[in-house]
């Protein structure tokens, strides 16, 4: 019996040996690069694959260990990264929304990478968005404009609507016209796990409110707003309540994902859709032609403003392979990388010197606005406030959507705001 046990134990130990040796060999492979990102949908997946492929042409001895984690606009991946960091198992680099609040939420685990910004032609405001405590901690890869109001061009032309909405009233007049014609005027897609789109949508409404504007939005995201007193919050709620009460919103908004919301325009049921410029990629992937089947305008009252955030990458503290990761980060700051990635994803490049001849008419409009020195850049809800803002306000606003009582909405908003700041 004793002999049997001894043999069993020896065999067990021998069986476990390869595991230890595998760990050792992994450590010795210096050219691995562990990357986490959340690009798994059509367009974005092809874009990141093309980017990796080009990087491997320059660095063929690198083994990219890619970990795509979809869900929740990156929320699932960020949760995973946090558990890994807590277990002292940091990746080399991971995708992160480029903006002061989101980067600030991760500041303790990001390495400064100032040297990559020495010859990086970006607007100063964009560089500022990537700084935490005065140090650059991420590089931006593509612009994402948030204050876009997409519309079904054929229906808008058919109904004779001028799609330039200088204020909320202009838009409400158009909505009434659309509703009378039998279409859904304003489409929302904010189903389970996607309530954060409500926070993104109301951000554009606060920005476009008579007492809103870029300065107020910045104040709001820095915890300096007085929610119960500020007119912009009341104006946003009154506008949203009107849209709900007048039946301008699709009744299945809370069962749809953002892309299913975009589909409502493509089935000629809905007319307007307030969503970031990533919706363009969805429309074109489905065969819709920009400026023919669909077009965009700035959301009501936000003309001259550019609400944005970027997809970015950072260098993790305690990254197992920092040298090659810095090469990767340096590579994605190049015009070449942006030119490979952005057209495939349907996005636009942040470098001011990136070539533009491969973009469609809508992307060129967006780029022209971005590069126009008169345009006021506003950090979006994905970038400026702390990470929890989206979740807290998404849930709070889903309650307002069901019970559009302005006074109660303001109180709930104030309570949610106080829970963050």
């Amino acid at each position, binding site marked *: *019996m004793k002999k049997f*046990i001894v043999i069993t134990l020896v065999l067990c130990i021998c069986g476990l040996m390869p595991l230890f040796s595998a760990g050792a060999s992994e450590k010795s492979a210096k050219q691995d690069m562990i990357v986490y990102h959340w690009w798994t949908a059509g367009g974005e997946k092809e874009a990141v694959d093309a980017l990796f492929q080009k990087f491997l042409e320059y660095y063929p001895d690198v083994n990219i260990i890619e970990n795509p984690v979809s869900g929740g606009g990156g*929320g699932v991946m*960020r*949760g995973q990264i*946090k*558990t890994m*960091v*807590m277990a002292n198992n940091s990746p080399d680099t991971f995708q992160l929304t480029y903006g002061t609040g989101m980067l600030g*939420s*991760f*500041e*303790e*685990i990001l390495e400064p990478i100032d040297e990559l910004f020495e010859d990086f032609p970006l607007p100063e405001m964009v560089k500022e968005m990537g700084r935490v405590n005065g140090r650059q901690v991420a590089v931006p890869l593509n612009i994402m404009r948030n204050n876009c109001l997409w519309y079904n061009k054929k229906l808008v032309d058919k109904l004779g609507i001028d799609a330039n909405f200088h204020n909320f009233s202009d838009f409400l007049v158009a909505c009434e016209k659309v509703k009378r014609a039998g279409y859904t005027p304003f489409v929302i897609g904010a*189903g*389970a*796990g996607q*309530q954060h789109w409500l926070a993104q949508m109301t951000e554009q409404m606060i920005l476009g409110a008579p007492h809103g504007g870029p300065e107020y939005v910045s104040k709001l995201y820095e915890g300096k707003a007085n929610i119960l007193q500020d007119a912009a919050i009341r104006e946003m709620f009154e506008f949203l309540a009107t849209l709900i009460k007048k039946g301008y919103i699709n*009744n*299945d908004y*809370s*069962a749809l994902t953002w892309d299913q919301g975009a589909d409502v325009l493509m089935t000629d049921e809905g007319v307007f859709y307030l969503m970031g410029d990533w919706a363009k990629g969805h429309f074109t992937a489905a065969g819709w032609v920009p400026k023919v089947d669909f077009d965009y305008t700035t959301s009501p009252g936000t003309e001259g403003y550019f609400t944005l955030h970027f997809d970015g990458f950072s260098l993790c*503290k305690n990254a197992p392979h920092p040298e090659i990761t810095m090469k990767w980060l340096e590579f994605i700051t190049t015009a070449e990388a942006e030119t490979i990635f952005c057209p495939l994803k349907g996005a636009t490049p942040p470098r001011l010197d990136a070539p533009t001849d491969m973009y469609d008419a809508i992307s060129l409009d967006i780029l022209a606005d971005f590069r126009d020195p008169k345009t006021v850049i506003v950090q979006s809800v994905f970038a400026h406030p*702390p*990470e*929890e803002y989206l*979740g*807290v306000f*998404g*849930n*709070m606003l*889903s*309650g*307002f*959507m*069901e*019970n559009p009582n302005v006074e109660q909405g303001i109180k709930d908003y104030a309570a949610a705001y106080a829970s963050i700041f």
Partner: protein
Amino acid sequence: MILNRKNKFYIFIFLLPACVLVGLFVYVFLSWSIKVSFTDWNTIGKMGKWCGLDNYKQIFFNDPVFIRAIKQTLILTVLFILITLPLGILTAVLLDFKVRAKRLFRTLYLIPLSFSFVASAIMWSWMYMPNQGVINSVLRTLSLDKLAQPWLTSTDQALFAIVLVYVWQFSGFATLVYYSGISSVPIEILDAARVDGVTVFQKYQRIVLPLQKPATITVLLLLLMYSLRVFDFVWLLTDGGPAYSTEVLANYMYRVTFNYNRFGIGAAISTFMFLLSVLIIIIPVIASYIKKYKGGKK
């Protein structure tokens, strides 16, 4: 087996790996989590400082969502068990009758249990869709338009819609346990009852069902353990919404910890969940031991 010194040594050796693993991955991490619940850790990558009971005061006195999550977890638990247990008994009794294709029915009842939670959640989310979902479509086809509801997207009924999915997934498990219990009732007792002229109803009411106490305790404990930490369907179907109307403790704990980065508060919620589970589950266990002990003394 005689417990001599040699055998005791072997028993110790064989139990050691399991004890070490359970000790490390359950009790060490549990202790660590409890310790974290007394810190103000709210920044990723930077451990917090000792803050005493602040996190517990925060969740119990300043966090209405947490209180709501407790209530909704308990409502979900009670409804889930109150529906699943009788349904399991009923289907097990029906299976006990001499019915044709008994195996087919048994398999049908068990199929939902074999589904992955993600697949089930996606299927039910399609079924619950307000416009294109099969449930509302059937209701409209039957001219019952008034009964068509925004199942998952209304604060009034989303929680009940989720309870229904849990019942659907787990009733097969209750059926299985009860059917095993009913099948193991000694045939001699049933024969004696038949000779005494009991009716079918009396057979189940007075003989078969009273003998299902062990099965009931098993099902009850397992369903309780599961329902107190429900997460999967809630996260997949509603993510706690709309307006926190389906927020439950596990989902809220995940949200607070990994979305809001409040690790100390998340740990306090998880410690509370642990204590709640221990309290609810340990009471019947202690009660049964006391009863057994008293019975032994007699």
